[in-house]
Structures are given as C-alpha cells and as structure tokens.
C-alpha cells in the first residue's frame, strides 16, 4: 500500500478533474500546502475585520428605524436596514461560492479538504441575524490562516474570535469577583471552557473533570466580543487570582491574556489532545475506524513536533495504512457536491457564470436535503463522521436526485457518460459503473448514474 495519485486526489483532495492533474507525490502535496495560498488570493473571503457590512453595522441599522419619528429619515433607515439584511443573506451565498470556486480551480485540494475539516472541528454558527455572514470569515481568520501552522495558534485564534465567543456564550461570562461582577452581577458561563476541553483539545472522556472546566472557565473570563470593537480582553470582567487547569496554575493577581494563551498552548500539546486529534484526522480522511498504527504514528509526530500541523499531516500521508485501496469513507455532502462539479469539469468561471440563484437552488438547497445544511450543524460537535450517518434513505434519495438533476444546470452540453466515467473515477473505474454509464437510456441518466454510484460517493 503506497502513494497513488488517483487515490490521493479522491481520498485527500477535492476529487478528480479533467482540468487538473492529481498530485504526483506526498512531497508535491506538502510543497503545495506549505506554499502560498493561491486559491484564497484568487477567490477572497473577507476577515471579520473587513466584513462589510460588519455585524456591528447590521445591528445598528437593524435598530435605527425604531428610534426615529415617521418621515423621510426613518424611511431611509428602513431602506438601509433592508439593504443590510439582504447583503447578509447574499454574503453567506457568496462565501459559499468562493469556497467552492477555490476547490474547483485548485490542484491543492488537500488544503480545501483540511479547511472543511478544521472548520468542522471548530464549529461555530452565526445564530443571530447580524452574525450569519460571519462564519466564513471565522474560517478564514482561524482555519485558513493557521492550516499549515501550529495547532496552538489555531486554537488560540478560535478561542478568541468574536464569532466563537458569541456562539459559545463566552461574551456573557463574568468573573463574580471581578470589578464588573462586583458592580453589575453576572456570572461564569462554562460553555466555551467545556467545549475547549471536550471537543477542541482533550476529547470526550479525556483526563479532566468538572473542576478543570470551572477553572478554565474562570481563566477565560475577560474574553469578550462587543459588536462595536470585536474581540476584546476586558480585564474588568476577568476573575482575579490564579486558576489551576489539569494541575497547572495560570495567572496571578492581575488577569492577562498571556495566561489564557499559556493554558491553551499547554492544552494543544497535551498527550490526550495529540491522541484525540490524531484519531480525528485519521477518522476523517482514512476510515471510520482507523488503523491503530496510523493513529499512533500521527500522535507521536504531534507530540514530538509540539502540534505542528504539516508534519502531522505528512505522517498520515507517509503511512501505508493511509493508502489502503478499500474506500471506507463516504464523501460528506459538501465534498460530494465539490467532487461532482470537479468531475464535470466545471471551472470557477463557469461556476460564477451560473449565477447565485442557480447556485442556491442546485447546490445550497440540495446540501440541506442531503443532511448538511450549509454552515448550520446541530451543535458545536459539528457533523457526524460515520458513513451510515450520511447514507440514510432520506439523504440517499437527495443524493440520487442531486446526481440526476444538478449536472445539466452547470454543464452544457453534458459529457458523454462513456467518457465521463473515466473523468470521475480515474483510468480504472469499476466495471459495473462502466456498464451503467453505457447502458443508460439518456445522457443525463448516464452522467447521473456515475455520480450516484457508490464508487463515486466513496473515497
């Protein structure tokens, strides 16, 4: 079991494409990943800092009309409110489009897949009307910027990002003995602290208890995200005194951001974190129950490198178990959508030309039908990983419908199914798919059958 370009593109990349050669080697994959992020430069997504309209602006324009007397000024405010709300909805779709375009135009599909992986690991939702368009900017700031860096940096970026601070209620957590707490009341909210330990670092069943959760929650007080200023460390809300997390004491009399950073950095390289993350990466990319030796190799690398992500990825890619020929994973809906477009040879330009309405109706809506509504997982634990969570009767019906109907909306004319089967599955497609592609009554059904085949949905 060794590196294979076709398998590399299917299992670790965005999917085979008639326009892009699959990766030539692990070295080539790593060189691309650690090189410049050309896809992001070509199809930009704003940072939370440059998001326009900002959550603050949307909020202000939402509330402005209420305070004005009836008249032209109020009408103008109402108009701005409507306009901003419309922009928020549009931006969610535009960011989706940019995400897909990056994958369509790139030979660095591994980067796009890792982006989806980490965005799911640090799940946030823009739950209020003013934050809905801030999820992709969060991914940009936290994930994309640290994808090829250290886990500690990504963790710190996530834990201090306004979207995360709001999503997991950290912004309303106040140290009871802080100046704010003494004057205005309020209390600790443990949500972010718990999820950092349970989801982001040590993992469920990790070596922590409720006291660690509480102590970390106290340490995190002061992290706030006022709409106007974005992320702010508010010392007046920080619980004074030191806190002990997993037996290590952080901070002293004066609360400071560097203590929080120190605690997160320690968590990032904790052995339980190394194990949890090695398992999670291998589970996502290779198999729902990954080879223990593969996990051990990645875990070891994590510990030795202090959580430097590229070397951990490389440990995965260099392990023979990563190249087992059996395709044990099922593409999640977003990966399935992207791989389908890539197989059809849709270029980023053709994709953009299809227009936002078609993108919404033919891609964003079907994602929800397939069980993965764009950027709205049920909870902070993100999307399920197991194949059988995605291949249910209901979601299967949606996948078949997608396969049969999507292509004609993005490609004209449709490819010849007899050739398409090779574009989609490589030079050695399974004979039953070749048979179905040849036996179909119509071109659209032939193309649809290839996309609907288990061989194409698995990776």
């Amino acid at each position, binding site marked *: 079991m060794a590196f294979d370009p076709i398998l590399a593109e299917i299992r670790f990349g965005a999917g085979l494409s008639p326009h892009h050669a699959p990766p030539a080697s692990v070295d080539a994959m790593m060189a691309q990943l650690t090189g410049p992020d050309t896809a992001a430069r070509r199809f930009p997504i704003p940072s939370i800092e440059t998001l326009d309209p900002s959550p603050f602006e949307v909020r202000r324009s939402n509330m402005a009309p209420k305070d004005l007397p009836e008249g032209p000024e109020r009408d103008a405010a109402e108009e701005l409110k409507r306009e901003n709300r419309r922009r928020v909805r549009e931006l969610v779709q535009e960011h989706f489009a940019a995400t897909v375009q990056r994958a369509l135009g790139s030979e660095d599909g591994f980067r796009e897949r890792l982006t989806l992986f980490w965005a799911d690991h640090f799940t946030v939702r823009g739950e209020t009307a003013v934050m809905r368009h801030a999820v992709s900017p969060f991914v940009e700031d936290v994930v994309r910027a640290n994808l090829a860096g250290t886990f500690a940096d990504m963790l710190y970026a996530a834990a201090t990002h306004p979207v995360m601070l709001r999503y997991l209620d950290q912004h309303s957590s106040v140290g009871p003995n802080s100046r704010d707490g003494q004057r205005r009341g309020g209390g600790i909210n443990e949500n972010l602290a718990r999820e950092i330990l349970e989801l982001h670092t040590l993992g469920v069943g990790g070596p922590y208890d409720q006291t660690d959760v509480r102590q970390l929650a106290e340490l995190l007080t002061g992290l706030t995200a006022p709409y106007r200023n974005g992320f702010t460390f508010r010392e007046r809300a920080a619980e004074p005194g030191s806190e002990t997390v997993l037996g290590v004491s952080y901070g002293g009399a004066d609360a400071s951001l560097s203590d929080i950073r120190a605690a997160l950095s320690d968590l990032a390289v904790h052995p339980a974190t190394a194990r949890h993350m090695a398992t999670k990466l291998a589970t996502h990319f290779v198999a729902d129950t990954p080879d223990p030796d593969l996990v051990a190799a990645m875990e070891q690398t994590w510990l030795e490198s202090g959580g430097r992500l590229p070397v951990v990825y490389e440990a995965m890619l260099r392990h023979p178990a990563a190249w087992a020929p059996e395709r044990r994973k099922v593409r999640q809906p977003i990966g399935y959508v992207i791989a389908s477009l890539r197989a059809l040879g849709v270029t980023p330009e053709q994709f953009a030309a299809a227009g936002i309405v078609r993108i919404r109706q033919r891609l964003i809506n079907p994602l929800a039908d397939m069980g993965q509504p764009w950027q709205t997982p049920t909870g902070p634990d993100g999307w399920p990983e197991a194949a059988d969570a995605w291949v249910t009767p209901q979601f299967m019906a949606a996948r078949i419908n997608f396969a049969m109907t999507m292509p004609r909306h993005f490609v004209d004319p449709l490819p010849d199914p007899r050739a398409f089967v090779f574009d989609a599955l490589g030079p050695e497609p399974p004979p039953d798919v070749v048979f179905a592609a040849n036996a179909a009554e119509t071109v659209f059904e032939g193309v649809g059958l290839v996309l609907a085949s*288990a061989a194409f949905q698995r990776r």
Partner: protein
Amino acid sequence: MDRRKFLIGGGLLGCSAAASPLITPVAFASAPWDARLVVIVLRGAMDGLDVVRPVGDRHFAELRPSLADERGIPLDSFYAMHPRLEPLAPMWDAGELAFVHAVSTPYRDKRSHFDGQDLLEAGMPDLESGVRDGWLNRLMQVVPGVEAETAYSIGRERMLILRGAARTSSWAPDTRLELSPATEQLLEHLYHDDVLFRDASADAIAIAADVAESDEMGDGVGNGRNVDLARFAAQRLAGETRIASFSLGGWDTHNRQQRSIRRALRDLSDCLLTLKQDLGDVWGKTAVVCMTEFGRTARENGSRGTDHGTGGAMIMAGGAIRGGRVYGDWPGLADRDLYAGRDLMPTRDVRAYAGWLMRDLFGVAGSAVEQAIFPGVELGGDPRLLL
C-alpha cells in the same frame, strides 16, 4: 384492500424486504410495545394564553384588549380555546384533546428561540451541561427492543429531540424520487455489492413510492407541507413505528397576532385531524403532545402581538389520553402573580408532563425518567394523563 396495509406492508415488502435491515420479518413479529407517541415541536414560541384562554381570570381581558376580542370556544367554566381551533371541538367533546397550562421548560430570562428550542429538545435543566442528545433518543436508549424504524424524525430538519446513540429513522415527505424503471434497475445493480448504499437506496425508493401512492389518494384533511408531515407520521405509526416527531413553525407572533397565528393554528388542527383520520384504530392507543420553547408576554404589545415570555401551554391529543380537560395549576394573571411582572408564571415543568406520559405509555420507570431521560426533573404527583 385496506389502503394502509397495502402501503406499509405490501409496498415496502415488495421492494426491499430482502435488502433492508429495517424491515425484517422479525421486526414485524415482535413489536415490543404497542402505544404510539407523537411529539410535535411548535417552533417560534406558541402563545399559550391565546390558544387556551383563561377567560375566567378577571385580568385576562384587560391584558389582551385586541387579542381576546374574537370570542373563543368555551372549554369549561374558566377556559376557552382559540376560535381557529373550532375543527378540534369534536375531538375535545370526545375526550381526545387536552391542554396543560402554565408550564415551561427550565429556560428563564433569556429569550432566544434557538437556545429555547435546544433546551426543549435536549430536555436538560440548562444548556451548559454539554449534553448533545435529545430526550426522545434517550427514551429509545432505556426501552428494550428498539429498531431503527421504531422512532421516526419527519421533515427536513435534523430534530435534536431524536438525536443520539439510539438508531432512528428520518424522512422528509416532500422528497420525491422519480426514476425511470431502467435507471432504477441500473442503480440497484450499482449498489448491489455495497450493503450500506444498497439498503439505504432500496428503502428510499420504497418510501418515496409509498408517499407518491398516498399523494394520489389525496382524500385527507387539509393539505400542504405540514399536513404531509402528519400523513407520513400516521403511515409509519400504523406500521412498525412507535414514536414520531416533527415540528410546526409560525408561532412567533410579534405583530397583528390575530392574523398571524391563524395559519399556525390551522396547520396544527389539520395535523391533529389528519393523524386521527389516518391512524384509524391505532388512534386509540396514540398520544400526541405538542410543546413549544417558551410562552409569550401576558400583555399584548403595541403592535397587537405578543413578545417572548416564559410560561405557556402544551397540547395533547389522541385516543389514549384522558382529554376534555385542562391540566395544570393556574397561577393567576394579577401583576403580582406574573413572572417578572410580565409573563405567565410557570407552575410546573413541561418535562414533568412529558415524563408521566412516557411512564404511562411505555412503562418507563420513574427513576429512568428522572435520571436518564430528563435529568433533574421532578416528576411530582401523577396528573393521570391517560385513560
């Protein structure tokens, strides 16, 4: 031929019995428990005070000058139900409809729909506990003999209430799968050697065919997407399914509530009537419970609507319940009786009623309810919800 038997038995068996692990002869033979439970989540915060009006409370009319304008349908000497629920009057008279008043989840003082619904579906005392499954799923974990088909989540949303370790099924009745016979055969061929894909697609094709079949019958009560949810629920419950859950939206009535609540009430009453009609004999062993994330303000607001509040109402229906009555302790609507001076004071946890229902329907031990299904709930005295 009995239509239901054909749809559930014939339709599914013909297409996929051999392939599907969900529909085995064993599953048909060994239904472990017989009662049916339907949980409808009313999203958007239903105004309990409008739906079940405490007209006997002397403060009610003054709190609701425009909303109480149109006369309700008298239920007893104290309560009247909203006039748009008139189609349900026969159900009330037959003792198959009941309400519970002045109930709420433990959610207090914050007024987010998302959080409120998460808490309702998680069935937990608070949102910080990190519990990720829903209470109906935890029910499935404590009763024996559960198959994936035993519990059905219906509609496009992933229902948190059914999320968790126990396997459940889901289907959105508006899903259509129209394939030419040749394509269907080729798909079968393509999936033949992949058990996961083979079973899921066989079930998908069979269920979609069932639904298409019942579309053509089209003799139901009302119509529309929401009624389809109830129709599909009844189809499943007449077979191997014991628990079904779906949600109805449209309850967030901040403005001109007299108008805006009508559609939601119509959908709700259509759903209940559809369930009764389509379930036939099974209705007699069915309990339907409708719950919402929180109530609405006791006073109507400046735009003749109501805002997010605390205490509210719960609706129950079904041949199994002891209906024709309004359960609950009435707290009063005087200023001093209101929660925080603005909301109906909850006098009991909505989870206590749901807990008693599960106890009575399925014989779940009280301790299992208090520890596993609704951790921290106090079941309290038996309201005797069932006949």
